[in-house]
């Protein structure tokens, strides 16, 4: 068998359906990371503008809480922001672990999933703390 024939054979080795579904999952992760990045770009701009407004107007902690308490729009915005972070960051960390640490086993997916849940839970808790 020549090198080229062997290479063609390599791609057919194992279960093509399984390989294909793994590749599909990777593509979905890529789409999720790009979509969340687009969302993050918008959210970070709004968040920075909010910070600059608060600082330039010398708002106290109490004044800020007065505006965020019971403010459904602020809560919805920060929930979306937290969601984008929880999707974006673990996918990037997963790639870093694969490429720089050579960590490619299934355990990495569980760890990335746990980081996603933790980011979402802690972020939402912070958002809720200034709402309730």
């Amino acid at each position, binding site marked *: 068998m020549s*090198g*080229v024939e062997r290479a063609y054979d390599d791609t057919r080795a194992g279960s093509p359906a399984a390989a294909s579904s793994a*590749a599909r999952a*990777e*593509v979905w992760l890529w*789409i999720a990371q790009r979509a969340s990045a687009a969302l993050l770009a918008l959210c970070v701009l709004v968040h920075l503008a909010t910070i600059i407004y608060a600082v330039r107007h010398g708002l106290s902690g109490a004044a800020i809480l007065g505006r965020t308490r019971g403010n459904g729009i602020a809560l919805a915005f920060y929930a979306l922001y937290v969601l984008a972070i929880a999707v974006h960051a673990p996918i990037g960390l997963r790639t870093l672990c694969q490429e720089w640490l050579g960590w490619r086993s299934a355990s990495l997916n569980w760890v990335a999933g746990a980081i996603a849940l933790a980011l979402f839970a802690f972020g939402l808790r912070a958002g809720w703390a200034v709402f309730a």
Partner: protein
Amino acid sequence: MLQVSVWRGGTDGAYQTYEVPRYESQSVLDVVTYIQRNIDPTLSYRFACRVGMCGACAMTVNGVARWTCRTHVSKVAEGDALQIAPLANLPVVKDLVTDMCEFFDKWARARGRFVPGTTRKDEFARVASNSPERVAIDAGIECIGCGVCYASCDVVGWNPDYLGPAALNRAWTLVKDVRDQGRQERLEAVAGDAGCHACHTHLACGERCPKNIVPTAAIAGLKRAVALAVWKGEL
């Protein structure tokens, strides 16, 4: 005189320094050839055409992958010092010779062959030279498989399964070929962790390509085509 540091041995080899007379319009390949013909005949290296057509003489010169035949010493020498090593990201066979098997096997894995769909009885396909597909193909079709982009790619170093810029560029020229019938299989082959989505858009491949091809642009095209196919449930 040039002080030329040349990689000798296999992966566990070391640099050895040679003194080579300096001439005007001297290429790096001239330097390597001088060493082999006048100082040490056991030095191994590859070349064929000497005029930038075959891509066989690619090596790492002062840390950068280049065609040695088209690289003037005056452009790359730091003072009188040259360091010449085999291409990175490929196993070293001996001295300046690398094993290119994996590089070309990846072209096959990326389904880099044309899949015809017509017979000799059918009409010729007519592809306008200014059609968007043909323009996209023209941007990448001049690749001669020298391996400079592959040796310059960070992602190949991090992920040994990554198909690499040249193979993905080839796949893209076929994805844009209106005559080709292997689109589905090819998009599947270039999807996923070892495929186009692993590219970090560092652009080193395009920066170093002696043919001024930008494989990153081809890979970006593949990313869009594969993502769209997955989104539509076609893959």
